């Protein structure tokens, strides 16, 4: 009896549900379809990974199944779309979004590979820097040691350059969203960039690179041409950072202590720039040192001019105190072996092009060198005496010749 009652209730419920189902408004059904469709469409746009898309794909199948019985009325009501074209659109959007994530996955794989290469090069750089420091600290450097040092420096330069190129690649791969106007980025976009930058430890990698570049300049003594290459490298880095730095500041605006890390990077750029400026003066000083000319330290054009002018003035003053030979040797070493051979020909274009030294300052030093030269090896007067002697001989000869010509005329006059 009880079972019969339950069956009746179930039958009543079925009939009621059926009636309700049949009495559904077509308009509401179409609206319900449109709402679910719109939710799926938005979901595809907002999906953050492939898993989300897989779930959405299942929901699209459910929507299609739920409304396939109403295909006829939907075909007429979804103008200008129809039932099939609506699902084709969803499918296309899903495929396009899937491609986005596939590309991102490929890029992330590339970045992971690049990052491990960067780590490897960082370790190699540290080893090279340590070796160079040890060799530089040795007082005596024979030819073999110098050759080894030069090779190590060249290796280090190559690995640093390679590492920096990898960093550029990481930045390019990680920040496609930063290419546009950052003010138009949604908070979600900013969070994505933030998590990508953090995941790949980008700020730390950039900081390490900047420190290594500065350290490289500290432990090495470079030629003007090498320094030019370093300066170009620094300019590339600065350009890259100017492109993404301010945008990252915006992205990191709400991250408190992390935004301090961005300021650190700005400071490291300044350190690097100063280091490059200083490196030129240190390398020039070392050039003099290698030739046993010990000068005071100089870090700018004014100091350089003053120190060199003072050194030359002292040498001029000491002329006569030191032996003539020593004075001449000192001049030859300074002027011929260092100034004209290296400084003037190799460093001067770099110093003047980079506005580290003014042309007037260069002229002032060279004028001093000329003065020094005139003191150390005054011009010989022998040739002057010879010319004067020759002139006197010529005049005497001319006078004699004129007298000889005059004498026969006087004789003729007497005869007549």
């Amino acid at each position, binding site marked *: 009896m009880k079972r019969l009652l339950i069956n009746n209730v179930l039958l009543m419920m079925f009939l009621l549900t059926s*009636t*309700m189902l049949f*009495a*559904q*408004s*077509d*308009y*509401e059904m*179409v609206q319900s379809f449109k709402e679910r469709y719109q939710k799926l469409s938005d979901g595809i746009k907002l999906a953050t990974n492939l898993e989300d898309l897989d779930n959405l794909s299942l929901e699209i199948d459910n929507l299609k199944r739920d409304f396939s019985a109403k295909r006829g*009325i939907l075909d*007429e*009501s979804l*103008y200008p779309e129809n039932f099939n074209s609506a699902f084709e659109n969803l499918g296309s959007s899903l495929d396009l979004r899937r491609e986005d994530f596939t590309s991102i996955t490929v890029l992330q794989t590339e970045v992971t590979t690049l990052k491990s290469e960067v780590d490897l090069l960082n370790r190699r750089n540290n080893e090279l820097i340590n070796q160079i420091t040890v060799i530089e600290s040795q007082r005596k450097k024979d030819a073999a040691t110098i050759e080894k040092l030069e090779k190590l420096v060249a290796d280090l330069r190559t690995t640093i350059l390679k590492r920096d190129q990898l960093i550029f690649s990481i930045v390019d791969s990680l920040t496609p969203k930063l290419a546009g106007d950052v003010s138009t980025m949604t908070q979600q976009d900013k969070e994505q960039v933030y998590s990508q930058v953090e995941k790949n430890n980008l700020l730390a990698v950039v900081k390490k690179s900047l420190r290594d570049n500065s350290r490289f300049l500290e432990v090495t003594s470079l030629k003007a041409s090498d320094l030019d290459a370093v300066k170009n490298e620094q300019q590339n880095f600065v350009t890259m950072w100017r492109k993404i730095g301010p945008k990252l500041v915006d992205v990191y605006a709400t991250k408190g202590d992390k935004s301090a890390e961005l300021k650190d990077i700005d400071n490291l750029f300044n350190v690097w720039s100063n280091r490059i400026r200083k490196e030129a003066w240190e390398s020039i000083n070392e050039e003099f040192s290698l030739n046993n000319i010990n000068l005071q330290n100089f870090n700018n054009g004014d100091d350089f001019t003053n120190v060199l002018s003072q050194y030359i003035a002292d040498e001029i003053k000491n002329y006569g105190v030191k032996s003539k030979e020593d004075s001449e040797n000192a001049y030859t070493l300074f002027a011929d072996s260092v100034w004209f051979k290296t400084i003037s020909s190799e460093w001067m274009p770099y110093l003047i092009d980079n506005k580290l030294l003014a042309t007037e300052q260069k002229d002032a030093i060279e004028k001093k060198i000329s003065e020094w030269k005139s003191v150390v090896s005054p011009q010989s007067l022998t040739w002057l005496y010879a010319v004067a002697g020759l002139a006197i001989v010529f005049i005497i000869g001319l006078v004699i010749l004129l007298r000889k010509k005059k004498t026969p005329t006087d004789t003729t006059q007497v005869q007549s």
Partner: protein
Amino acid sequence: MDFLSLHSRFYYGEKMKHIKLFLIFTSITLLAACSSLLLEPAQFSWPIESVLKVDKDGFVNEERHSINFNTKALFFEETQDSLSFAGKTLHLIRNNEGYYFMTSTDFKNVYVFSVEKNAFSLQNTILVNETGLSNPAFNQRSPYIELLDDAKTYKLTFEGIQEGVK
């Protein structure tokens, strides 16, 4: 019968024949001119109803079919209140024959209109529920317009309710 009478009979008989032919030709021409050109069969049904929000001036705008009209008179006809249109929605559907069916929540009637120059012209008022419709919705169920009101269903033509409450 003399010659004159014979001539007279023949002459008038011919004249009458001409008059008859003229009248027949004129009648045919006039009838042809009066008949209009018909393109048939034609179907005007909308697949689903449009649910239109009445704006502050009493206008509704149906975008898909580019129809725009004022509903003040309709709401006044139903409620006798000139401001009753405020905040209301109008349910509108067109049947296969081209008649427009309109109703709204709390309406007792469905109004059937045909189209005239720049106007809807009332053709029929169908009383559906004396207490007013609580949640009306039209479906296209050709040749009928189906009116739903909660669980109740009515089959309508422009003439009235064809089938009662289910």
